[in-house]
């Protein structure tokens, strides 16, 4: 099997690479690339993302043909993709970080700033929070409900269709922490930094 971690200059991805190698380097060919041909021939794709929604979308668009290739991979070929953090947020149609920016549009909805109730809650939402699993997701196999995951973000994905939500977490409001729509998976938290439980999620994705 070949898993590609998309390297599109979206910030620091070494932790994502390390975690996938830790989990599966003996049985999976892990590629880190933005090469369109290599992405096309992958069995699974990981879309990381750090920084702002806009900076990640801009970085994707800077690589000619990358968005089209990802669209084809996910929408036409229905192959599994895991978006992490802003990687998940980009599934939305639109994001409002920095300025209004068009997303990939794979899951209808928007990405807006977490309402911190006039400063009552600190932003970014940084640290370990528990996930409340609200639907069976293939990547949550053998993950106990209320497991702790590591978060760091100030913006949240608000999907129109709530049935795509697979887990929520309590902060200033109930924040979407993961989605699953057919072959599209995303986590707002960082499985690569969420210790043993996080690695298990990565393992589940690889085993899909």
């Amino acid at each position: 099997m070949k898993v590609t971690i998309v390297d599109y200059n979206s910030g620091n991805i070494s932790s994502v690479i390390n975690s996938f190698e830790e989990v599966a380097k003996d049985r999976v060919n892990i590629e880190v690339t933005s090469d369109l041909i290599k992405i096309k021939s992958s069995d699974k794709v990981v879309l990381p993302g750090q920084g702002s929604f806009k900076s990640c979308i801009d970085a994707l668009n800077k690589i000619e043909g990358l968005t089209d290739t990802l669209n084809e991979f996910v929408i036409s070929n229905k192959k599994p993709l895991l978006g992490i953090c802003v990687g998940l947020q980009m599934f939305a149609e639109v994001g409002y970080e920095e300025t209004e920016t068009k997303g990939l549009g794979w899951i209808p909805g928007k990405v807006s700033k977490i309402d911190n109730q006039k400063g009552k809650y600190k932003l970014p939402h940084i640290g370990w929070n528990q996930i409340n699993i609200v639907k069976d997701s293939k990547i949550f196999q053998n993950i106990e409900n209320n497991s702790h995951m590591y978060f760091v973000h100030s913006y949240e994905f608000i999907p129109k269709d709530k049935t795509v939500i697979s887990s929520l977490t309590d902060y200033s409001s109930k924040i979407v922490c993961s989605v699953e729509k057919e072959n599209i998976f995303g986590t707002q938290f960082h499985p690569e930094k969420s210790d043993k439980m996080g690695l298990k999620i990565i393992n589940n994705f690889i085993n899909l």
Partner: protein
Amino acid sequence: MLKNRIIPCLDVKNGRVVKGINFVDLKDAGDPVEQAKIYSDGGADEICFLDITASNENRDTIYDVVERTSKKCFVPLTVGGGVRSIDDINKLLNCGADKVSINTSAVENPKVVLDSSKKFGSQCVVVAIDAKKNGNKWEVFTHGGRNNSGIDALEYAKKMEDSGAGELLVTSMDRDGTQIGYDVDLMNKIASKVNIPLIASGGVGNLDHLVDGIKLGNASAVLAASIFHYGKYSVKEAKEYLDSKGIPVRI
């Protein structure tokens, strides 16, 4: 509910762990990679490396330490000490650091905070503030506590938030190495002034000090070095103690 974090910090010099008392009189005691792994296995919420003499010496050893640690520890790793430029940050992140803490250079050139948060995202930019009380205010010190910038720590904290810092790591120079507890007054004043999380540092001698840092200092996370490093308490014991005091922690 978001949990308060416990962050063991390892002072690293030439690739080896040390812990200074008031930033001098260093003892060599161990391999940072092994130590970090012990901490993360024991439930540390993050690991922090502080490359203490990095401003003056060859820094290459820290890159190797970070690279090896990030392949073994799957909790966030923050690295600070001698971080001066976008290039330094880039190198540390590429080696596997998740966050970088910026101290002296943020004072001398606040643009580095602005630029790095734009380039890499606020989530990886921690501004470290070394503050010392002078009369009824606190002043920011640089160069490992050697130079007084004369800048007011509260105003500076706000400015760093506005420049794009994702978190503040606040160390009381008066308390560091004393083991008499955090300067909770300083922590609380800064935490109330900014809307980003504050990590309290400097002065922890027992587990009640961690409780105070969170309850009285209003810190989102508490950092400590020697109580963990010399085996006085394990991270697990610290978490269980906080839990018994009603503080939300990840157990």
